């Protein structure tokens, strides 16, 4: 647990970076500090590993004031990831990852096996071990940064805008993998970002900070979207927060409609018989995994892979209402495909059915 108590930071020129910050980042959870530039989020983060010292107040890790711990020793027990990974350009991927284990005096063998294990864990091919950072893509560099921070298995991880230097598709991938990794590792993470969507996606709890270094609201992502504390938070959280809040309405079993299906290879006559008067027919494989939609008016022969329209997203039964609504809106047939956790077809749902569920929920 990381606890800030009445922390302020005033620079010699009188600038107040942090003003009366008190918050607790619970063990094993992701706490995100989010806010506009100049709100002191990075300053706060760096107080945890003593790269910046508070003017007044204390920062504690598991009840121990960090000011009483040796800076170097403290830092070797805290993983740190920054934009683009902050990798050493002159060290290979393997050497970058081995930085802290070397400082801690691990044996060569220990280091080699740990490095290989971490590369696999963060999804880096082992042949990249001897490459230099400038020979990697932005996403790969970021993975190396995460692997390096995890090297000595620190209980605490500090992450400063780690995913902001990569393109949106890679960013989303990295975020998903980060959440998967965290579900396995359960680190105590403090994560800084200026991107509220990233904060809402990743956080167990979010501290929205405003310029001058005060916390405007400290809440769960769902709480932030549903009950913004003031106009600043409401504005910062953004306009389509009602829609985004649907992302947190999960665990609801939506009533689905059974959907007639056909497999690839079926004849035109078989397809017509199954579809009846419907304009669209859902194609599945032999294990009932949905493959795509078939437009009956376009079909002129046996059902082939090339006939499939792949645009629709899938919603998992018991997943969020947002995913279900997106499945309905993105399907060419306007019927959202709902699958179970194994990816097998459950049925379909219309946008109206999802909205009816949403209206039933308390706000």
């Amino acid at each position, binding site marked *: 647990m990381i606890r800030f108590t009445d922390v302020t930071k005033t620079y010699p020129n009188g600038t107040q970076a942090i003003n009366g910050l008190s918050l607790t980042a619970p063990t094993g959870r992701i706490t995100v500090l989010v806010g506009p530039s100049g709100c002191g989020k990075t300053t706060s983060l760096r107080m945890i*590993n003593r790269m910046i010292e508070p003017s007044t107040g204390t920062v504690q890790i598991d009840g121990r004031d960090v000011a009483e711990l040796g800076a170097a*020793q403290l830092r070797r027990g805290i993983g740190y990831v*920054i934009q683009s990974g902050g990798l050493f350009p*002159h060290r290979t991927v393997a050497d970058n990852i081995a*930085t802290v284990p070397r400082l801690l005096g691990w044996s060569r063998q220990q280091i080699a096996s740990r490095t290989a294990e971490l590369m696999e864990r963060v999804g880096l091919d082992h042949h990249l071990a001897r490459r230099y950072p400038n*020979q990697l893509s932005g996403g790969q560099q970021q993975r190396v940064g995460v692997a390096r921070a995890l090297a000595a298995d620190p209980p605490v991880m500090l992450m400063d805008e780690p995913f902001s230097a990569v393109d949106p598709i890679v960013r989303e991938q990295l975020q998903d993998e980060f959440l998967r990794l965290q579900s396995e590792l359960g680190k105590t993470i403090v994560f800084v970002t200026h991107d509220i969507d990233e904060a809402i996606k990743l956080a167990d709890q979010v501290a929205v900070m405003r310029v001058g270094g005060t916390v405007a609201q400290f809440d769960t992502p769902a709480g932030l979207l549903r009950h913004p504390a003031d106009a600043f938070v409401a504005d910062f959280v953004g306009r389509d927060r009602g829609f985004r809040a649907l992302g947190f309405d999960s665990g609801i079993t939506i009533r689905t409609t059974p959907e007639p299906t056909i497999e690839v290879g079926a004849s035109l006559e078989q397809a017509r018989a199954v579809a009846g008067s419907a304009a669209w027919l859902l194609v599945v494989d032999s294990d009932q995994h949905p493959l795509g939609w078939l437009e009956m008016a376009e079909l002129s022969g046996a059902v082939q892979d090339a006939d499939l329209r792949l645009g629709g997203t899938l919603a998992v039964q018991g997943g969020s209402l947002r995913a279900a609504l997106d499945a309905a809106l993105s399907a060419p047939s306007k019927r959202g495909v709902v699958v179970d956790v194994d990816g097998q077809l459950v049925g379909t749902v219309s946008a109206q059915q999802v909205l009816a569920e949403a209206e039933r929920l308390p706000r």
Partner: protein
Amino acid sequence: MTWALNHVEDIGGLLASHAVLAAVPLLIGLLLAIPVGWLAHQQHWLRTPLVVGTGLLYTIPSLAMFIVMPLVLGTGILDPLNVVVALSIYTVALLVRTVADGLDAVPAQALDAATAMGIGTPRRFFTVELPLAVPVIAAGLRVAAVSNVSIVSVAALLGIPQLGSLFTDGFQRNFIDPIVVGIIACLILALVFDSLIGLFSRWLTPWLRPGSAT
């Protein structure tokens, strides 16, 4: 060119001493310029005085420097130490700015990451900052090397034997051959120094080689 062929051994000896008189101060100057350049890089208010101050040393005419050295050092006028000390000063003059610039060019994020991982300041300097400053420092070192090769020859006026002696010899006897040989030998020596530093810098910076998956 029969003169050159008849004096191969003499020329070789002069070339060797010329090389030593240029190379030793280069190394000494580099070793001195690194801490001074680091100070200029580290302390903002010291940068201008240090960079400009040491840079001005280069404007002292070499002949004057060689003559003043025995007075300052208490050495004999023919002592090669005069040349070594004088050229070390010139090397420092050329390299302090280069070292400071090279250290400035190290990415701040790499330094932050090093600090955050608990790498102490001295260790960080030798394992992160200095290796990353090598390309810039090497570029400055190449200039200083060529400059040293050229300035050493002036010491011939004091009678310290090296390739410059071929110039004084040629002028005194009004004989062109030693002068031409001296110029060509200086040129070759400068090229060799330049290439050696280039190769060494390349060896120290494998990450800058394109497609280097070693």
